[in-house]
C-alpha cells in the first residue's frame, strides 16, 4: 500500500511496555490523529515513526519500503514538537531555511523559499525577527513552516496546540487542517484533545495504555465507540452497570430495552450520550422517574443533572431546541431510547 504502514510495531523501555504491537495504515494525503490520555504511548509511537526511537519489534514501511532502520535525518519526515523546538540562536528566516541550507541549497535560494513558506503560514515580513520576539501562535507557525521546508513525505505534529490559549488553539486547528488539505501531505497529529482530533482528522486512532482501542473516522468514533473506554474518552456519556437478560439490560429492578446482542447473564456496561437522552413525561419503554438536581447553562447548551433509581443521568439540550423548562427540585421522567444505548462487555476501563 502507498503511504505509511506500521506492522506489529511495539516499544518497551526496560521491562515497561510503552506501546503494544500495533498495526496501522496512514493513507497518503490524509490527516490521522493519535488520540489518548497522557502516557498512553501516542508520542512514543510518533517518535518511532520519526526515527527518534527504535521500535523494539515490528516494521515501519513507507510506500512499500522498509524504513525501520533508517535514521531520523534520512527519513525526510517534517516534525513539529510540543515545545516547537525553534533554534533561539537563529532568526525566523534561518530557522525555516535550516533544512535547506544544511542540505546544500544556496543561502539566497533557501531564504527565498523560507519567505514563501512564511507567507504560506501568514508570517510574511517576520523573517528577520528573533524567536524570542514571537508570540506562541507565531512560534507554532514558524515551526510548521520549518517542518514543511524540506517538502516532507510525512508531516508529524506532537501536541502542536498544547502551548496555545483556547481561542488561538481553535483558530489554528482550522488553519492547520486547511493548510494540510491544500498541500496534501500525509500528516499524523498526536493530541489528547478530542475536539482537536475531531476538528482536524480524517481518521482517529484512539489509544490507551499503549494499545490501540479504535481506528475510525471522527463521527464513527463518537457515535459508534468500540468500547467503554472510547465512549468515555470521546465526548461525555452516562454509564450504568447491569446484566444482559431477556434481550435487555437489567439494572437493579429496572429492565432497559437495547438493540445490542449479548448472551443472557453477561455483565455489561451501558452508555448513553447526554444529547441522546430525553426528558419525556409520556408513558413508554425505557422511561425512568427522575429529580432535577442541578441545571447547568453553558451558553449554547443546557444540561440537566438528574437523580434516578439507576444513578445520576445528565441530559443535554441545545438552547433554542424544543426542550423542557425545568428547575432544580422538579420531578420528571427521563427516556433512554433503545437505539441510543451503547452496550459494552463489563470489565473494560471506562
Amino acid at each position, binding site marked *: 500500500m502507498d503511504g505509511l504502514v506500521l506492522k506489529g510495531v511495539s516499544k518497551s523501555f526496560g521491562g515497561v511496555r510503552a506501546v503494544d504491537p500495533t498495526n496501522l495504515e496512514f493513507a497518503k494525503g490524509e490527516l490521522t490523529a493519535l488520540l489518548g490520555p497522557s502516557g498512553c504511548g501516542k508520542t512514543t509511537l510518533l517518535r518511532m515513526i*520519526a526515527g527518534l526511537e527504535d521500535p523494539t519489534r515490528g516494521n515501519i514501511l513507507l510506500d512499500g519500503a522498509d524504513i525501520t532502520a533508517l535514521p531520523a*535525518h*534520512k527519513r525526510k519526515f517534517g516534525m513539529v514538537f510540543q*515545545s516547537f*523546538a525553534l*533554534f533561539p540562536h*537563529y532568526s525566523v528566516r534561518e530557522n525555516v531555511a*535550516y*533544512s535547506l541550507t*544544511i542540505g546544500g541549497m544556496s543561502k539566497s535560494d533557501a531564504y527565498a523559499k523560507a519567505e514563501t513558506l512564511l507567507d504560506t503560514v501568514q508570517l510574511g515580513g517576520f523573517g528577520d525577527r528573533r524567536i524570542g520576539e514571537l508570540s506562541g501562535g507565531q512560534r507554532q507557525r514558524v515551526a510548521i513552516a520549518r517542518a514543511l521546508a524540506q517538502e516532507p513525505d510525512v508531516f508529524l505534529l506532537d501536541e502542536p496546540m498544547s502551548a496555545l490559549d483556547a481561542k488561538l488553539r481553535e483558530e489554528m486547528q482550522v488553519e492547520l487542517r486547511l493548510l494540510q488539505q491544500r498541500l496534501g501531505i500525509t500528516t499524523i497529529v498526536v493530541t489528547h484533545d478530542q475536539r482537536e482530533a475531531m476538528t482536524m482528522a480524517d481518521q482517529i486512532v484512539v489509544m490507551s495504555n499503549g494499545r490501540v482501542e479504535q481506528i475510525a473516522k471522527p463521527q464513527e468514533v463518537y457515535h459508534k465507540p468500540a468500547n467503554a473506554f472510547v465512549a468515555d474518552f470521546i465526548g461525555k456519556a452516562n454509564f450504568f452497570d447491569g446484566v444482559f437478560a431477556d434481550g435487555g439490560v437489567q439494572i437493579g429492578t429496572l429492565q432497559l430495552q437495547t438493540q445490542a446482542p449479548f448472551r443472557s447473564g453477561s455483565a455489561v456496561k451501558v452508555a448513553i450520550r447526554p444529547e441522546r437522552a430525553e426528558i419525556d413525561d409520556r408513558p413508554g419503554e425505557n422511561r425512568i422517574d427522575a429529580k432535577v438536581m442541578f441545571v447547568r447553562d453553558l451558553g449554547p447548551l443546557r444540561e440537566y443533572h438528574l437523580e434516578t433509581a439507576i444513578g445520576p443521568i445528565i441530559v443535554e439540550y441545545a438552547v433554542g431546541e424544543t426542550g423542557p423548562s425545568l428547575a432544580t427540585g422538579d420531578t420528571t421522567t427521563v427516556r433512554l431510547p433503545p437505539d441510543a444505548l451503547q452496550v459494552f462487555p463489563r470489565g473494560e476501563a471506562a
Partner: protein
Amino acid sequence: MTVAEDISADPAEPAHRRARVWPVRRMLLATLTTGIVILCVVPFLLVFAISFGRKIDGAAWVWDFTLENYQRFFVGILWPEEVTFLYLQQLGYSFYFAVIASLLAVATALPFTLLLTRLKRSAQAIWLVFIMSSLSLSEVFIVMGWDILLSNNSGLPKLFKETGLTQWLKDVGWFQQLRDWGLANPRNVKFKTSDFATILTMSYLVWPYAVILLYPALSRLDPSLNEAARTMGAGRWTVTRTVTLPSIRLPLFGTTLLLFVFLLGTYVSVTVFAAPNKHTTAVAIYANIRGANLNAPFGATQAIMLLLSASVCLYLGHLFNKRADAR
C-alpha cells in the same frame, strides 16, 4: 526603584520604626563596604604602589615613584642602549600555555559533560561528587602525580621502552617526528621538559572546573532542539555544529575565559614541566618576590601587567560576545 528602596519606602511601616532601622542598615552597609575595600582593593593598591618602588642593590627595596620597572618590563633596563623583550616573552608564554590548556580542557570536558547529562540522575550525582572531590587536591599534589607518570626513569617513557613501543616508533619512522617536537631524546621518548607535559597538566588541573561550569548549561539544553535538527536532515556532526555548540556558545565562552584567567597564574606545573626559557610571568613574579631575585617592585610590576593583560582579554571577550549577539 530597587528592592531596597521599595522595602524602605513601605508605607505600612511606622515612621519612628523606619527612623530606627535606617542607621542600622547604613552601618551594616558601611561595614560591608569597608570590609570589601580592605580585603580586595587595598592589597591591589599596595601591589600597584610597590610597582613604582625601587630595588636597593644588596638589600630590599624602598618606596619611590619610578617608571623604571615598567620600562624594564617592556624593553629591558638597559634601554635605549640595549633592548630585551624577555619579560614580554614570559607574558607571551603565560598566554600561550593558558590559552591552549583552557581550550584543551573545555574541548575534552564538553563531550564528557554532554554524555554525563544523558546518564541517570543517580549516576550523574556520583560522577559530580567524584569530580568535585578531585578539586580538593592541591596543585602540588597533582603535579607530583604527573611528574611521576611522565618521569623519564620511571614513568611513561620507561613503559614505552620496556614494551618495545619506542623501538616500534623508530621502526615506523615516527620517532624522528617526536624528536622534532621535543618529545624524544636520541634514546627514548621524553615528556620532561616539554610544552606537551606543561599543557597536559595545566588542562588536567582545570578540567574538573570545566565540567562543573559546563554542566548546568548542558543539563538545561533542550533535547528536542537536537531532535528537531535530526528530523530536518542533520547528521550528528551537523547537529553539534549548528545547534548544540551555538546553543551553549555563551557558557562555553565564559568557561574558557574563566579557565584561561585561572591558568594565567599557574606556577607549579610550569616550574616542573616547562623548559626554563619558556617560564611564565607567574614564575617570574614568584622569583622576584619570594625567590632568588628579591625584587618586589619588579615582581609587582609584572603582576600588574599580568592583571591588565587578563582584563584586556576579558574585555575583548565581552565585546566579541556582544558583537556575536548583535549578529
